[in-house]
Each structure stands twice: as C-alpha cells, then as structure tokens.
C-alpha cells in the first residue's frame, strides 16, 4: 500500500496536507513484531510513538507494584496509536504493550524528530496534538463503555 495512503488512514494525521504527510513519512521507521513481542513496558522510560499499520496489540496494566499479573485493558488494531502519553508528558510508560498477531507492522516516530517537526511547522504541530487529544478522549470514552 502507498505509504501516504497508510498515513491518511490514521486519525493522528487527519487534517494534514500532502506536503505535511510527506514530512511525517520522512520521520517514520517501520518495525514488524511477532505475536508475544513487547513493544513498550509499563514503568520504563519511552521516547517513541507507535502507529499500528497492521495487526493487533494488547495493552496490559498492573494496578500496583505488588500486582504480579497484568490485566489486559484493551486491544488496539489498525490505525491506532500507542506511546502517545510518554511522548507528550515525558513520563514513564503507563502500560505494557504486546503484539498479539504475527506480522504486527508499526510505524515508529522518535520524540526528538516529532518535536522538531512540530516546532518547524506549527499547523502540523497543532493538528497532530489536537488529534492526539481526540484519540485520548476516544480511549476514555471506550473505557467508560467497558466499565458499564
């Protein structure tokens, strides 16, 4: 699939021009994970954002340090992002993320590359940050339905 078409199908990049999508594409690095591979680990530092291009991942959380069994809180598939919290607030990873399908393909964006891009193009920076906020809001709404 055309890489620009892939980015267009991801909400994170909704509202960007073709030129802006090109500049995003230049800072994306593709990685492929097998089922069971760890993508992030709760409590660890992280400076990467992951965009799921294909496959599924599970998001697991331990609620306390004494909790030995992490609980799967949600599965995320095509077009979803993970790692955005640490990208925005520079905190440690809030959850463990593990691939659950073979050939889970993700696009990885480094924080420094992302920050530079946002600083150099404020429309792009505003649009992507707005979309991250909308994505976090959507995840919160999903969580509300999960706990009904």
């Amino acid at each position, binding site marked *: 699939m055309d890489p620009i078409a892939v980015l*267009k*199908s*991801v*909400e994170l990049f*909704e*509202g960007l021009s073709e030129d802006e999508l090109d500049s995003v594409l230049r800072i994306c690095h593709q990685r492929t994970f097998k089922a069971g591979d760890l993508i992030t680990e709760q409590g660890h530092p992280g400076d990467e954002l992951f965009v799921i291009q294909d496959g*599924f991942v*599970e998001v697991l959380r331990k609620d306390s340090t004494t909790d030995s069994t992490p*609980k*799967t*809180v*949600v*599965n*995320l*598939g*095509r*077009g*979803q992002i993970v790692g955005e919290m640490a990208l925005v607030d520079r905190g440690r990873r809030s959850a463990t993320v593990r691939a*659950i399908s073979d050939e889970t393909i993700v696009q990885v964006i480094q924080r420094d590359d992302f920050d530079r891009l946002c600083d150099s193009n404020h429309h792009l920076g505003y649009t992507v940050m707005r979309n991250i906020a*909308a994505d976090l*809001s*959507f*995840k919160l*709404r*999903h969580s509300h*339905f*999960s706990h*009904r």
Partner: protein
Amino acid sequence: MAKVYKVSYVVLGGKHPGGITNTESEPKPGDQVTLDKNRYSVVEVISLVPPRGEFHYLHVTLKPVEA
C-alpha cells in the same frame, strides 16, 4: 479518500477486554466481526462523536457467536 470508521468494541460478558480499530465498512447490528480469532455478533452501534473529515467514530457492542 474512502470513509474510515474508528470503532470502539465492547464484548458483553466481560471476558474480552474489548478493542479499538479502524474498519473500512460501517458495522451494522447483526453483522459478524472477528477479534482475536473469535467471532462476535454486533448487537448495537452508537455514533460516539461527530465525524471529522473522512473519520467516523462509533461504539459497537458485541456478543460471542455460539459455536
């Protein structure tokens, strides 16, 4: 660009954590979907927030399909 449906799935019964994924077709009650290799039937579809561009935001309630 074709419409993209960003869908929040919750499975009745509490055994599945649910999921969020993009689909190219709009889910409808009675449709069947596959999550984690298991089949589920769509019970209810709710529009969560207004669309933005080609993105539509839906919440879908699923129930397991009996074998």
